[in-house]
C-alpha cells in the first residue's frame, strides 16, 4: 500500500507546487492588468480591459477537464510529452491561471481607493503604485487567495490523474475505483483531505500574522 501511496503523494505535491508557481506567474500579471486598466483606475485602458475580461471568462467557462485535454498538445511542445506529472503541470498551470487572475483581481480591488489617490498625489508612477502600494497593501488577502488557488490545484491535479497525470487522483481512480480497492480509495481521499486542511490552516495563519490592518 505505502509503495503505492507515497510516490503518488509526492507526485501530487510536485504537480501542485509547480503548477501553483506557474499559474501565479501567469495569473498575477493578468489580475493586476484587470484592475489597473479598468475605468477610472491608474492605467485606464478600456479596450484592453474588455479583451482580458472576455478571454478570462471564456477560459473559465470550459469544464476544467476538457480545457486540460485541449491544452495537452501544448505540453508536447513545452516538455516533449503529454503523459506524466511533468506534462500535466503545463495544462494545470494554464487552466488555473484565469482563476488566479480573478482571485488576484478581487484582492487588489480591496485596497482603499484613498491610498491609491494619496500615492498618486505623492507623484508615484503606475508601476510604483502596483509594486509598492497595491500588492503590499493587499498581501494578507492575496495570501488567502493563493491558499484557495493551491487547494483548487490539489483538486484539479486529482482530476488530472484521470487523464494520465499521475498522483493521488490517479491512484484513487485506477486502484480504488476500477479495481474496487476501497482501502486505497479511502486512504487517497483521506490524504487529500489532510492536505487541504493543512494548506488552509497555514494560509489563514500566515495571512493573519502579516496583516497589520
Amino acid at each position, binding site marked *: 500500500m505505502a509503495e503505492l501511496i507515497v510516490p503518488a503523494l509526492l507526485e501530487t505535491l510536485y504537480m501542485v507546487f509547480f503548477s501553483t508557481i506557474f499559474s501565479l506567474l501567469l495569473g498575477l500579471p493578468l489580475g493586476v492588468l484587470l484592475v489597473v486598466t479598468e475605468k477610472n483606475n491608474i492605467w485606464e485602458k478600456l479596450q484592453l480591459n474588455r479583451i482580458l475580461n472576455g478571454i478570462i471568462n471564456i477560459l473559465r467557462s470550459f469544464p476544467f477537464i476538457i480545457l486540460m485535454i485541449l491544452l495537452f498538445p501544448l505540453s508536447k511542445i513545452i516538455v516533449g510529452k503529454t503523459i506524466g506529472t511533468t506534462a500535466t503541470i503545463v495544462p494545470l498551470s494554464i487552466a488555473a491561471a484565469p482563476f488566479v487572475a480573478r482571485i488576484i483581481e478581487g484582492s487588489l480591488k480591496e485596497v482603499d481607493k484613498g491610498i491609491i*489617490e494619496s500615492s498618486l*498625489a*505623492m507623484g508615484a*508612477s503606475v508601476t510604483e503604485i502596483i509594486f509598492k502600494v497595491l500588492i503590499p497593501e493587499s498581501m494578507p488577502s492575496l495570501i488567502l487567495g493563493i491558499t484557495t488557488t493551491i487547494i483548487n490545484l490539489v483538486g484539479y491535479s486529482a482530476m488530472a490523474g484521470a487523464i494520465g497525470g499521475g498522483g493521488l487522483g490517479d491512484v484513487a481512480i485506477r486502484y480504488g475505483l476500477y479495481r474496487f480497492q476501497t482501502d486505497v480509495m479511502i486512504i487517497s481521499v483521506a490524504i487529500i483531505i489532510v492536505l487541504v486542511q493543512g494548506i488552509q490552516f497555514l494560509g489563514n495563519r500566515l495571512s493573519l500574522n502579516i496583516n497589520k490592518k
Partner: protein
Amino acid sequence: MIKIKNLSKSFSNGSTKIEAISNINLQINKDEIFGIIGLSGAGKSTLIRCLNRLEEPTEGNIFIEEKDITTFDKKSLNQLRKSIGMIFQHFNLLSQKTVYKNIAFPLELEGLSKDKINSRVNTLLEYVELKDKKYAYPSQLSGGQKQRVAIARALANNPKILLSDEGTSALDPKTTRSILKLLNKIRKEFGLTIVLITHQMEVIKDICDKVAIIEDGKIIEINTVEELFKNPKTQTAMDFISGLKSNIKNEIINPFDFKGTIVRLGYSEDNAKEPIVSNMIKNFNIQVNILSGNINKLMSTSIGHLILEIQGEDGEVNDAIKYLNNKSINVEVI
C-alpha cells in the same frame, strides 16, 4: 503663487453632463493659508484635486509659480506632485507599513539613499511629536496621530504647497485644534502655502487668512477671514458664521416674541474701545435690551457679536440703526 483662471470641470454621466465646478477664478498668495468652504457636493473637493491634477480640469488654467500646470505631461506632472504635499480626511496611510515606512515612502519614490531617508524621517517624526510611534502601524494610532503621520509624509519632500482635503473633518474638536496648530506652525516655519477645503467654519476661523465660499460649483464670495466675519456678503457666508455664533433662531428665543427691533452687531478689536452702545442710548430716545453677545477669535484679530433688542418709536429706532451703521460696525436687522 497659485492662480486659477476660468477653471471648469464637468463629468459626463451617460447623457447628462454634471458641472462640478464652473468658471473658478482664484489667486492664492505665497505663505497664505487659503480656505475654501462649502457644503458637501459644492465642488470644493473637485477644485482642490485640480491643483495637483488628481482631477483633470475640462477647461481653464492653473498657474503655479507662473507655470501652467494644465499643460504638463506625465513626467513633469509627477515632478510637480512631489513638490505639493497633500493630506486627506481619512489620512490614507499605507495600512501594512509602519509609521516610519509611511513617511519614508515619498522619499523612496524620490530615490534617496537609505541614510538620507533615515535622517529625514527621524527629523519629521520629531517635528510631529511621534518619535515613540516610529514602528507602530496606522491601525494602532488615534485619528490625530494618523493625521500627524500624514502631515509628516506630506512634508517629507519639502513641498512649497500643502493641500488639505478636509484634513480635520474626521477628528474631534480638540484634535482638530491641535492639527490646525501644527499646520499653522508649519506655515510659519517652512513658509508653506496652504490650501485647505473644509465644511467647518471653525477651521476657517482658526487658521485661515483668506477664504472663498463655494456653492454649486461657483465661488460666490472671496474675502479675508476678518472681513467675512465682520461683514459677510452672501447668505451662505452668514449661514456658515451663524453655525458658530449663538444661533439666534435656536438659542435665543423667537424674534417674534419681542416687540422691538432686533439687531446683530459685528465689530472688531478696533472699534471695541468706543462705547458705541452707550452713546446710542444717550443720543436717541430708545431702550436697549442685550440678548446675547460673543467673541470669535480669528487668526489675526477677534470679531465680536452682540444681539440687541431696540425699543422705541420707529423714527428713533431707525435713526439709532443709522447711527450704528455710521460707526463702521456691521449691523444686521433680524
